[in-house]
């Protein structure tokens, strides 16, 4: 099977000399969980935001699920095609505060996939029960805790039956005691074979769930290793320094 994400020499620079992405080459295989780590400003978020066209790039090539994106001047329809098949979960949840939980989840299936309302709601309730929050279906986002909101956000992304899920620091905005309920939900998804790219600082999650760890700094990919090697025996000096920093 071909990789579902293939980036070749992906480059993006903001102003003279400052690279957000510097010749990034990576690939993600179907069913794989790729964990992206690195200090802040290293380009992790920028990288996964290029995967669904939220962020453009200057040069290089990107192939998502067989659809090719070039730097600029992309066909909007191609980006749209990708977005229908790739889900994303944000750091700040970004639920729609004026819609109830179930409306948040059914909005895209009804409006984008043109599903019937009853069918979409049934599927949404199923997803909510998988996330363990089906009792909140008729509530509004502001009535839920951060961890619950993030699980709703995951359910919302899953409602479109995506082939790839992107997570942009999904637990960074949560209270410490709420982190695990979200990580558990993600772990379950990984066990079901979902392909995921996860930007996170959660070492335990990376160790237990990640198939590979991608380490970035200043827009460059420093190393890509399996978690065993990365956390015990990182190949690169820069990676070891970073790991020492976050273990303190």
């Amino acid at each position, binding site marked *: 099977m071909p990789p579902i994400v293939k980036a070749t020499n992906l480059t993006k620079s903001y102003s003279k000399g400052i690279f957000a992405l510097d010749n990034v080459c990576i690939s993600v295989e179907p069913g794989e969980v790729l964990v992206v780590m690195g200090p802040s400003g290293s380009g992790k978020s920028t990288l996964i935001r290029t995967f669904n066209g939220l962020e453009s790039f200057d040069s290089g090539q990107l192939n998502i699920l067989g659809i090719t994106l070039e730097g600029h001047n992309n066909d909007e329809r191609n980006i749209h095609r990708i977005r229908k098949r*790739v889900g994303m979960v*944000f750091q700040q949840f*970004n639920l729609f*505060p004026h819609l109830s939980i179930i409306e948040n989840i059914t909005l895209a299936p009804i409006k984008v996939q043109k599903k019937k309302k009853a069918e979409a709601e049934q599927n949404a309730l199923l997803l909510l029960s998988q996330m363990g929050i089906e009792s909140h279906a008729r509530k509004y986002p502001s009535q839920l805790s951060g961890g619950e909101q993030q699980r709703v956000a995951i359910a919302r992304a899953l409602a479109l039956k995506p082939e790839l899920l992107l997570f942009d620091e999904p637990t960074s905005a949560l209270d410490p005691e709420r982190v695990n309920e979200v990580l558990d939900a993600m772990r379950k998804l990984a066990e079901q074979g979902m392909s995921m790219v996860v930007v996170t600082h959660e070492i335990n999650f990376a160790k237990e769930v990640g198939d590979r760890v991608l380490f970035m700094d200043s827009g460059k990919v420093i190393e890509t290793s399996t978690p065993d090697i990365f956390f015990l025996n990182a190949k690169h000096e820069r990676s070891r320094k970073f790991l020492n920093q976050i273990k303190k």
Partner: protein
Amino acid sequence: MGNSYNYIKYIKRVAFSNALDSIISLTILSFGISALVNLFKWLVFSANWSVVSLNLPLYLFGSFPGDQLWRPGLWISLFAIFSFITLWGPRWSWLRKSLPFLWVSYAPLGIFLLAGGFGLSAVESQNWGGLTLTILLTSCSAIVSLPLGIALALGRQSTLPVIKNLSSIYIDTMRSLPLIAVLFFGQLLIPLFLPVGLEINRVSRAIIAFTLFVSAYIAEDVRGGLQSMPKTQKEAGEVLGLHPFQITYLIILPQALRIALPSLTNQAVGLLQNTSLMAILGLVELLGVGRSILANPEFIGRYIEVYIWLAAIYWIVCTVMALIARHLEQQMTLDKKDF
């Protein structure tokens, strides 16, 4: 007993704590009391309310033909009924759900009831007047200028330079003109621009002028709401594969309008009060009726009674509007917490 004692102590401390305070308090008190006494004396002994009581139909309906008065009467009653239903919050959900539709259809219904047609005899717009005309001007202008204002606000945010610049120029021009100038423009110049043979009456011209003016202000209020929306809401819609148009009307606009609601209420109340400017331009709306009654030799010099009466009517209608707006605001925020 302890309470009233505390109350006296409180007044003593606040108003009579030293000689200067006492003098100031007594002066204000004596002025206030004498004003109230005089007002009461005037209201009961000197005022002649016949100028109001004899002309009640005029204040309400202007010179609408006597045998057709049920039409404006029904329309005004519907305003009261709709307001009542909105504020008391009926238990039947079908009625609650149809309320927005009822309010939207209120203005077109008014035009139909006043102008006639479809089985009702036609009544010329010269005969429309009084409170009926005031509410007609307000409701028709409001119902058209709200969508127009939203469109202008969205236009101003557009990425297409032509649309963006046209909207900006329109909004800024309208906001730099005094309303009375726009109303004069409507009455005097619109007929010149129209092709020969096509004529529109003074009421329609007034509604067009009010709509052009108010929509620019509404556009700015809505823009305030749009700009307070975080970019992340748009992104959340984008990654779900929603079309830009769907993102605007399903996600951004509902939230932005909620934020803009208090200032939109302001515009509605201001619009109602500004319709009184049309009295200068020859429409006999509520203020115009007052002026024409005062010109009648029979009621000469009864200014104070008439203007107090008019102020009371404006006050009642504006208060009802403010109450409905507050009710709406509360509902919109309560929705999220009352479960």
